[in-house]
């Protein structure tokens, strides 16, 4: 099974029905993507497939063959959103943060608060109350 992961070609030998989440964490060693609810509600496992957010716990790896997958590790450590999340205390326990940042990337530049709220509807945070997250996204975009 071949796909592009954070800009590099990868070839994994797994069941085509393996969850993308498990392939990323266990085969590719990228544990920045977190497992949360397992039912598409929490967004902790969010990654980008061809630039669109998906829940990697609900994606059979066969369906990303030939695509470009981006995880939080693909941003390096100095992405403006990462910096803004730290500066605004947009992360507390941190489980939701990789998914939040990847979803925020797809919101484009200068999203309104309403656009941020709707865009993040599929990413739940149980610590921050969201306000710091919204501030971080507005600051970075």
């Amino acid at each position, binding site marked *: 099974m071949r796909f592009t992961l954070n800009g590099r070609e990868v070839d994994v030998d797994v*069941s085509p029905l393996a969850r993308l989440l498990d392939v990323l964490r266990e085969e590719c060693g990228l544990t920045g993507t977190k497992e949360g609810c397992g039912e598409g509600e929490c967004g902790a496992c969010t990654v980008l497939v061809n630039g669109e957010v998906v829940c990697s716990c609900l*994606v059979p790896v066969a369906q990303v063959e030939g695509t470009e997958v981006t995880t939080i590790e693909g941003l390096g450590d100095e992405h403006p959103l990462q910096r803004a999340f730290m500066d605004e205390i947009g992360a507390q326990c941190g489980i939701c943060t990789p998914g939040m940042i990847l979803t925020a990337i797809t919101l484009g530049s200068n999203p309104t608060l309403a656009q941020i709220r709707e865009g993040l509807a*599929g990413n739940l945070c149980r610590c921050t109350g969201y306000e710091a997250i919204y501030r971080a996204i507005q600051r970075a975009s």
Partner: protein
Amino acid sequence: MRTAISRLELLQPRSLQDALRMLRDEAPLTPLAGATDLYVALNFGTLENTRFLNLWGLHPLRRVTLREDMLRIGALATYTALRRSRLVRRRLPILVSAAREVGGVQIQNRGTLGGNVANASPAGDTLPVLAVAEAIVVLRSADGERRVPFGEFYTGYRASVRRPDELIVAFEIPEIHGRQWFRKVGTRAAQAISKVVMAAVRGPRPRIALGSVAPTVIRLAHVEEALAGGASLDDAVRLLDRDIQPIDDLRSTAAYRRDVAANLLRRFWAETADSG
């Protein structure tokens, strides 16, 4: 406990013809589109099926077209594609409303209209829309194609007329005259399964469909007839109460659903009063 992947099998057709042959010759197979329902079952260990047919790469099934005044939506069109489609926005804006509230963007990017219909949950958000749109379900098998009116598609709780060798390939939607209306009531607008969902059209003859109040999505034929004949809204609400069979479950209670269904009918009628 999650379902063990190692005992599952995936067949990967390269074309629709390929897929239809596999459905005929390799039965039983469960069609797998965006996996947003089937993989929840996998994650919770309740997945009963073991052999799957991967539809995701069958791009011709994603097309949305308008031909001879008939809107045709491919079964693999995702909620995101429905939201973006100019044709759907113009012809069936209530389908855009339903798609927008179906889940987070992550789910909208993968979940498909055909999957919502095939999954056959009584709470499926797009189903009342297809019911009032009087959509035609286009089913195809290796032997040919047949068209089933949406109102005849479901035969009971999670049961439909689709044969195991058939795929839902598209939905055909005739032009709708009248004002379209949609409202989903759930714990949260964008990310919760419906407690009650209503779609309606205020036209020469009103059309009203409800989800989550019966074993399948239902059209309120008696209510529609009464309103078309000039009955009072109070009488219509009494008929509605007779026509629904909501239950208590983890999302709500039967009594709450009855109240909400009645309120939705009143709200629909009030908000579309200038279209009647």
